[in-house]
């Protein structure tokens, strides 16, 4: 029972990946960077599709915009120039997203960028990873990275194996140019690595390729990248848990949070034990009738199997015969009282489920309808019992 890591478990993940974060990473770009140095030959399978020259670009408006933006950045435009892009990052990202989603547009993107940038001879197709002459296009175009890339928010993609494992990265190569630039930009924005800026700056003068992601002082690229992704995931989950556990909003720090979570889980488990003990004490007093009616009605409402119905009939018989006093409150109007708590009991778990994932919004209404049905049924069928109950309802409710 090894759970599939990441998004494999469950259909609805409660941990939305930050959609708003710019896609910085272009793992493929980095992974290819070293290999692509001084190599005009494209190694990418699809690159062969692209004509060596600049092809005509698809006339998507987004491209035009981006091209305009790209062209305004010179090769040596300081990183400050990138800052401007940060504002439009989102917009571009959106554009890119929409564009990349369109199949085949990815190539166009790349080409377009290349055309606009128009720098290295290598920028043809293989230059995905190479950000032509340091044009720092805002790429947040890692839109194509969204699915897989968004999962790994690699700020600094390490050259190397990171992108290799991801098939979708290939399609993002075109965005690589932009992403590398955006990466720089993001770095400049000082998200996490202020120290990296120096490194980024060093990248630009390197020339045509931009190894934006290369991080200083990191032993293995793939490992550190994976680690970072992992750390982000963990912090996401810790935040979610912080919301779940009451009284944890003020607490900061992983260790203390973890203690709080453990205490909370332990207290909940103890509560379950305690409540089950109390329920065991109360149990003989249960209104089996109501329970079975509830189950029967609800199951019938959903096309219950006959076995359940038989079960409830049995309950009826046992209810009629036994020596235990029935628990129907004296008087029919009193019947309504248990219905509310039952409804609440049933609905609170339902509503508790809802925030997590919205399973059955209509389920709660069904429950209520059926509760009403149950109550009416009870009225109809239990008059003979009521008198008996009233008569036999002394103070012996809690016999065990």
């Amino acid at each position, binding site marked *: *029972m090894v759970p599939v*890591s990441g998004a494999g478990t469950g259909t609805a993940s409660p941990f939305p990946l930050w959609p708003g974060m710019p896609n910085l990473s272009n793992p493929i770009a980095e992974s290819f960077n070293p290999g692509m140095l001084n190599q005009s030959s494209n190694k990418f399978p699809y690159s062969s599709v692209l004509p060596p020259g600049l092809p005509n670009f698809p006339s998507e408006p987004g491209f035009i915009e981006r091209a305009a933006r790209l062209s305004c950045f010179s090769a040596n435009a300081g990183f400050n120039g990138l800052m401007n892009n940060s504002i439009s990052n989102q917009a571009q990202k959106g554009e890119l997203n929409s564009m990349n989603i369109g199949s085949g547009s990815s190539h166009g993107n790349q080409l377009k960028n290349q055309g606009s940038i128009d720098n290295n001879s290598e920028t043809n197709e293989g230059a995905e990873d190479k950000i032509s002459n340091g044009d720092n296009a805002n790429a947040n175009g890692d839109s194509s990275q969204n699915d897989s890339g968004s999962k790994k928010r690699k700020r600094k993609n390490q050259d190397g194996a990171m992108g290799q494992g991801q098939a979708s990265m290939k399609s993002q190569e075109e965005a690589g140019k932009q992403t590398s630039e955006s990466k720089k930009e993001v770095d400049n924005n000082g998200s996490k690595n202020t120290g990296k800026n120096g490194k980024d700056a060093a990248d630009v003068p390197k020339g045509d390729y931009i190894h934006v992601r290369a991080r200083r002082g990191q032993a293995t690229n793939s490992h550190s990248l994976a680690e970072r992704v992992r750390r982000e995931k963990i912090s996401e989950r810790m935040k979610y*848990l912080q919301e*779940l556990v009451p009284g944890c909003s003020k607490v900061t720090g992983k260790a203390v949070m973890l203690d709080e979570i453990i205490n909370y889980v332990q207290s*909940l488990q103890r509560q*379950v034990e305690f409540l089950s003990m109390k329920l*065991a004490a109360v149990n003989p*007093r249960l209104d089996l009738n109501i329970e079975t009616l509830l189950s029967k009605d609800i199951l019938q409402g959903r096309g219950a199997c006959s076995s359940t119905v038989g079960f409830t009939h049995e309950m009826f018989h046992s209810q009629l015969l036994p020596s235990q006093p029935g628990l129907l409150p004296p008087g029919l109007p009193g019947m309504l009282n248990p219905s509310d708590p039952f409804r609440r*009991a049933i609905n609170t778990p339902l509503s508790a489920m809802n925030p997590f994932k919205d*399973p059955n919004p209509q389920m709660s209404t069904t429950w209520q309808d059926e509760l009403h049905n149950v109550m009416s049924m009870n009225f109809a069928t239990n008059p003979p019992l009521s008198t008996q109950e009233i008569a036999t309802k002394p103070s012996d409710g809690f016999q065990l």
Partner: protein
Amino acid sequence: MQALHFLQALARIARAAPKPAHSARTRQIRHAAYASMAHSSRSSRRTWSRALLHRLRQRQQQRPGRLLTVRRRVRIVTPITSRPEEPARAETLRQLVPGGRGMEYCNLLEETADYVQCLRAQVQLMQTLLDAFSS
């Protein structure tokens, strides 16, 4: 789903002809509570629910007819699952959440969140039932 299952189980327990001892009833009710948690539609696909059901069935099979029940079969010991970068209390959490031994820390947190939600719902349900029955 969770509530329905629990109510059915409760009815079944209450119906048991020979009145078992209080402790036995407690155990049965607790068993029913955890089973209904594991059967809830939201969590049926979770690791912890599978592990929990497995553990419950294991206990059920062991109990009848054995004076000395084997509480625990040989399991993979802790050190295998402990990882260097995890906080110190991660192991405790693993013990608390069913099925936590084999999970990575990242997944453990996710499972814990789901488990906490189910536990909370179960506690609320039981509390409400208690109030209803005792009023």
